[in-house]
């Protein structure tokens, strides 16, 4: 039995050099906890997509991760323009990414659908001109998946 763990990272909008740092740190922790490779990939792919979304679309943000024996819970909280129509944003191919974001290799409109395909529980709340909160949970044991 391990002690529940809490990790926190700050993000800057527009800073693509650092995008992925938090997800990389989370990956290291999960590896140390001997989580199986396929589950780690589902977690870090989702985390990285959500992290890049903050860098690409918002002004600043905070990532909180809680890990216990059964699951990882991740919250991506940003200050930003918000998402006016979440249902539309969830559709594959929908993107408002700027040319600068596209130059970095993003803007296919696949990030949110990709998160949805990889996580066990997903909730997105957003307020226009305020920000967005993306929350998801992924089970760490085979029974949870």
């Amino acid at each position, binding site marked *: 039995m391990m002690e529940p763990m809490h990790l926190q990272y700050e993000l800057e909008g527009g800073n*693509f*050099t650092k*995008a*992925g740092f938090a*997800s*990389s740190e989370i*990956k290291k922790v999960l590896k140390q906890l001997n989580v199986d*490779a396929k589950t780690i*990939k589902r977690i*870090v*792919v989702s985390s*990285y*997509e959500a992290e*890049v979304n903050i860098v690409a679309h918002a002004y600043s943000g905070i990532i909180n991760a809680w890990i216990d024996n059964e699951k990882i819970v991740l919250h991506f909280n940003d200050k930003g323009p918000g998402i006016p129509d979440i249902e539309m944003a969830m559709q594959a191919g929908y993107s408002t990414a700027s040319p600068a974001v596209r*130059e*970095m*290799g*993003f*803007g*296919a*409109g*696949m*990030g949110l659908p*990709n998160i949805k*395909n990889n996580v066990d529980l997903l909730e997105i709340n957003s307020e226009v001109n305020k920000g967005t909160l993306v929350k998801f949970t992924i089970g760490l044991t085979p029974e949870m998946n």
Partner: protein
Amino acid sequence: MKIQKINELLNAEVVCGEITNDSEIAFAFASDLMSEVLTIKKDGIVLLTGLCTIQAIRTAEMSDIHCIIFVRGKKVSEEMIELAKENNIILLKCQYSMFKTSGILYSEGVQPVY
């Protein structure tokens, strides 16, 4: 196919990483869209891309991709090399276009993901 063989076929240059005899590749995927790369479930693929940014390395890190081939002789930054080394990712670069690179690997038996 061994990465060594890929390197020869493409007339490529090893930017970083050790090409050992056990570096074996069955599948390749060619894309400049990182979210597209992030949908791939298969392991042991090689990524062909013209996107020569730090995010290409991050994407490989998250996707457990151990080899990236940068096409059209793009400049790989020190920062990218550092991050690739940290994650044991082999970086190759070749002068050929994405089309020619893909064509050569496909005709030599490297499998597509889809």
